[in-house]
């Protein structure tokens, strides 16, 4: 992870920041339309969303884009590298030119723009899939543990503790390096999700615990509603903002994790491009061809920044929006 999971979790709901809790306790969910308007006028949220959208489009339309730019992600271009100087790209800034918009890779002359576009696929696919998976599992587990308590809670909490006690990064590297190389994307999603869901579940659980005691839930119970109904009709809606914020804030973590794993060599197998793996390949060249690491590094940085900003803005809007209504 780009930063430790304990900090990430504590950061998401800081120990002292109970504002989210309090607003949930004091009022029913705020008007959706009002929140949307607040969202659209927040330029931090808008900029981030724009960049994220750009990357998603880039990922989806990668083949089209590379047709336009003229070079695929696997094609070698011997003319763009200098064989007498260790096969370094010709020209300043790592060989940026009209032919190669982002320059080329040393040693092979592969087009960096094409590899960035295709690399976006891996990053987005893994991060979004992992987020989806962890959110689903985390919410389900958290709800079950928080609502039913007792044995269910005991078991689920122990499992969560157990998973959180693992040094996740080391374990992920070890598992991934031991497994064969096919279906990497799938494996990455599974492995990342395996260690990621407890953090979400823990938050959902504690919120469920406090929601459980509130009047409207008691009222629902008194009127004979089934547990299922209560969970889905009363509790879950109140968790909406939390879940959205947590999910949005989880994405950058997973992007960073996938990139980190690729950087260490256990991500997707080359020649499939991945931003993390491009940076790893760029490391020896950092002194003479800095663009080679700057470009994927910048893309990574901006993507993580955008998701984090988005999550932050959503949370601010949700809490202030609800407080107002």
């Amino acid at each position, binding site marked *: 992870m780009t930063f430790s999971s304990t900090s990430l979790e504590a950061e998401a709901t800081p120990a002292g920041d109970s504002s989210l809790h309090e607003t949930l306790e004091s009022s029913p969910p705020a008007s959706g339309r009002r929140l949307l308007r607040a969202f659209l006028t927040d330029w931090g949220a808008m900029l981030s969303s724009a960049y994220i959208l750009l990357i998603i489009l880039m990922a989806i339309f990668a083949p089209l884009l590379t047709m336009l730019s003229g070079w695929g992600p696997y094609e070698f271009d011997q003319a763009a590298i200098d064989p007498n100087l260790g096969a370094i790209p010709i020209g300043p800034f790592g060989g940026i030119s009209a032919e190669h918009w982002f320059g080329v890779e040393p040693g092979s002359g592969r087009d960096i723009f094409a590899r960035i576009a295709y690399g976006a696929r891996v990053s987005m696919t893994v991060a979004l899939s992992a987020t989806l998976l962890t959110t689903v599992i985390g919410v389900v587990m958290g709800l079950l543990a928080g609502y039913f308590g007792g044995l269910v809670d005991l078991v689920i909490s122990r499992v969560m503790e157990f998973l959180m006690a693992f040094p996740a990064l080391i374990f992920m*590297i070890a598992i991934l390096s*031991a497994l064969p190389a096919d279906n990497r994307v799938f494996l990455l999603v599974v492995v990342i999700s395996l260690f990621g869901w407890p953090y979400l579940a823990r938050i959902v659980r504690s919120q469920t615990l406090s929601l459980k005691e509130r009047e409207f839930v008691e009222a629902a119970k008194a009127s004979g509603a089934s547990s299922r109904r209560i969970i889905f009709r009363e509790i879950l809606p109140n968790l909406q903002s939390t879940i959205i914020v947590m999910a949005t804030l989880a994405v950058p973590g997973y992007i960073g994790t996938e990139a980190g794993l690729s950087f260490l060599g256990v991500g997707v197998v080359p020649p499939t491009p991945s931003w993390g793996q491009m*940076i790893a390949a760029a490391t020896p060249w950092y002194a003479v061809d800095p663009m080679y690491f700057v470009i994927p590094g910048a893309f990574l940085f901006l993507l993580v*920044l955008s998701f*984090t900003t988005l999550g932050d803005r959503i949370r601010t809007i949700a809490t202030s929006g609800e407080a107002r209504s």
Partner: protein
Amino acid sequence: MIRIVGSRLLGMLVVLFLVTLFTYAIFFLLSADPAVQICGKNCTPERIEQIRLNLGLDQPFWTQFWGYVGGLFTGRTFTVAGAAVECAAPCLGYSFQTSQLVGDMIVQRLPITATIAVGAAVLWLLGGVVAGVLSAVKEGRFLDRFFAGLTLGSMSIPNYVLALALQFIFVVALGWLPFPQAVKFTDDPGQWFLNFILPWVVLAVGYAAVYTRLTRANVIDTLQENFVRTARAKGLQPGLVWRRHALRPALTPIVTIFGMDVAGLLGGAVITETVFGLNGVGKLTADSITANDQPVIMAVTLLSAFFVIIGNMVVDLLYTAIDPRVRTGASA
């Protein structure tokens, strides 16, 4: 209180045992022929046989596992090249690839990991708390926004990208710093400092950002608490209000999280050490995974988990001791 400590201890041991079991099982299941992998290059059928014998690889899973666990408590003897190699408790295994006791390998590398971890920890704690407090006090003003932006950026940049960027700027372009190497403090303190600055900064930046935000939020909340308002209303000097009433409750959660983070780092900062080529425990982990040196991978994974679990337990206990509300058992 004793009961709580006791149950926590028990819980910790259970988790530790399960982690060991799980780790061992994963490696057992995932390796096609562990003997061949453990042997590495320059292998002969005789060595493979030797490894099989030493580690009992032909035996059922549970026998092997208990052998490993037993070694952790009582030590083990390996037969290498016809001679006995004593592995004192806790026996973390023998690396056939490098002909060394895993314990020795780790001990050799601990100083570097400790240097990086402690140096970075000091940096991020000081930096994070100071920035957080300043942001809280100047809430909403320029300084606060500035730090907010800075922390956002710091949290978002992957540390290996930051490492390369800083290296390029300070080592290659400006030439202010030397290329980071593991210089001993006793050899040359000045050079030691200059060499470790980059790894410290790279590792600390992410944490500092998070700590800044945490501190800021905590301080803001604490300042709004009733007991602080009361203290102010009573006419206490601001400085006193700060030190006696506000700072402690604001910072206590920080310190406990700090404990957990540092504990996690004792297992080695894998990426930071790898990027700078510093031979700490983290790099040992990365290298042994590349080389598929199973005994080492097993050992560092366990060690790391051990630190994290201990750290968690210590923090839990501290919380219990400090915060009376928690003692009633409402916590997870």
